């Protein structure tokens, strides 16, 4: 019987910087060519494309790669939850026989070009609520929206400034092991964290992710069509998306902390036949420090309210019980809408992560977070 499991066959990424000096179309092509080579394929093998909502399009890659018969394209509209959700859609496409090899990609000049404020107005849901009820009273950015979660968690569960800082410092320590990280060579102390400039209390500058120029691409195909892969195949064992209650408005959620991930996680784990305790490493969408704590709780790695102590005790560091973001994450490696988390999961599962390798990594969980708490989770295995 043929093996119809969806796998990730190839990964590619550019350098990450504050100023790439190249067009986003060039960045996308660089990552795409790298992923195709990594998978042992030729450009013409790619017959499906899944771009990000903002940035280079399928048409850009069809033209740039010289693809003659792309038969599947699709765009997920879930902000930073999109790349992981796209793995699910790509898996469906290859398993249904609609396409043989689907490339998911994100390319952006996120620092030197269109920065986060400009991208937001093009993608956040509930525009009339944002423009009517929030912006006129001074509320307008992800840092400010998610600060509302962090502050409430502090009120209900006693989560502390130092616990947020532990996330920032752990991500930075990981980046010190990754020469490709934007913050490589730049250690961060708790004092430096505490003294960093306030952005949206309780968030300080070092609670906030980086803005990055760069690109990543991953290629999804079927196990039975990948008999000559240069690298170990990484299986998409489970993947799901979810949406918070009251999805277009954070303020009035009855269960204030529920996320898309809260609903996606049980589905993804069930599909994989695995539990949170089976996971060797987690790639958590760390747009801000508290969101790591919240997602560890909502994905089921720890009970709600226990995430702060969990990170403070060192569990998420390399060598801890659940290493998180060995590459340094969005906080210290770079921010390519979280698709760089998928790339890192594959590198780790191949055992190719060098100094930051998680020993015997066989099961990785990758979360996505977007917009007002849309969520996705992929369970990847070797």
């Amino acid at each position, binding site marked *: 019987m043929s093996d119809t499991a969806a796998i990730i066959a190839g990964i590619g990424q550019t350098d990450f910087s504050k100023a790439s000096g190249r067009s986003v179309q060039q960045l996308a092509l660089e990552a795409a060519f790298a992923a195709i080579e990594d998978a042992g394929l030729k450009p013409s093998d790619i017959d499906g494309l899944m771009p990000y909502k903002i940035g280079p399009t399928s048409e850009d890659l069809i033209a740039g790669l010289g693809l003659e018969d792309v038969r599947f394209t699709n765009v997920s509209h879930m902000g930073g939850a999109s790349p992981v959700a796209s793995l699910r859609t790509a898996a469906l496409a290859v398993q249904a026989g609609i396409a043989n090899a689907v490339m998911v990609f994100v390319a952006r000049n996120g620092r030197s070009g269109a920065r986060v*404020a400009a991208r937001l107005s093009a993608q956040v849901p509930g525009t009339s*609520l944002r423009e009517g009820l929030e912006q006129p009273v001074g509320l307008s950015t992800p840092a400010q929206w998610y600060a509302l979660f962090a502050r409430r968690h502090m009120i209900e569960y006693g989560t502390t400034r130092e616990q947020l800082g532990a996330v920032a410092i752990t991500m930075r320590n990981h980046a010190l092991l990754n020469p490709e990280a934007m913050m490589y060579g730049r250690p961060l102390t708790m004092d430096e964290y505490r003294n960093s400039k306030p952005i949206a209390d309780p968030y300080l500058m070092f609670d906030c992710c980086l803005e990055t120029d760069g690109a990543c691409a991953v290629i999804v195909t079927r196990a039975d069509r990948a008999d000559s892969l240069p690298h170990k195949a990484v299986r998409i064992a489970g993947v799901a998306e979810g949406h918070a209650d009251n999805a277009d408005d954070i*303020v*009035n959620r009855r269960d204030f902390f529920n996320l898309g991930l809260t609903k996606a996680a049980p589905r993804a784990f069930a599909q994989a036949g695995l539990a949170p305790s089976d996971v060797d490493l987690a790639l958590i969408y760390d747009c801000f420090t508290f969101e790591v704590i919240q997602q560890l709780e909502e994905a089921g790695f720890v009970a709600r309210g226990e995430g702060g102590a969990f990170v403070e005790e060192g569990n998420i560091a390399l060598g801890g019980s659940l290493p998180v973001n060995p590459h340094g994450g969005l906080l210290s490696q770079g921010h390519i809408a979280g698709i760089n988390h998928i790339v890192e999961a594959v590198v780790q599962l191949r055992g190719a992560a060098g100094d930051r390798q998680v020993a015997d990594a066989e099961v990785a969980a990758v979360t996505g977070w977007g917009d007002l708490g849309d969520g996705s989770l992929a369970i990847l295995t070797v």
Partner: protein
Amino acid sequence: MIDLATLDIPRPDITDRDLAGFWEGTAAGELRVPRSRVTGEYIWPPRPSAVGVPDFDLEWVGVPSTGTLFTWTVVHQTGLQGYSGITPYGVAVVQLDDVPVRMVGFADFDPAELKAGMALTAGFADLGDGVHLLVWRKSEG
């Protein structure tokens, strides 16, 4: 207190079909929320219909203008016009008394005084041309 009318802040579209009833309320000095005659539920934020039930004939009803501080942020950095000149300022999410509604408003006092559970009272900042914004002030006594 900060007079928001002196700042060139973003103005809401008070003719927005789903929000107009709220702005009519703030102009009259009260908070109003749409309620379904079918389910009896308050619909907040305002939506065209009762949630999950096809009832588009909602009635706008007055709700308490007092509540307690549920969560907040203190904005130190913003690109919003007008507000960028008055940082740091607080934005308060207030759980209204007696009804299952939380409303977000400008915190019209020293943000260092923000404290979980504190009692707040709605105020209405007159921006001119019929626009009255919700601001939260410390309740007396």
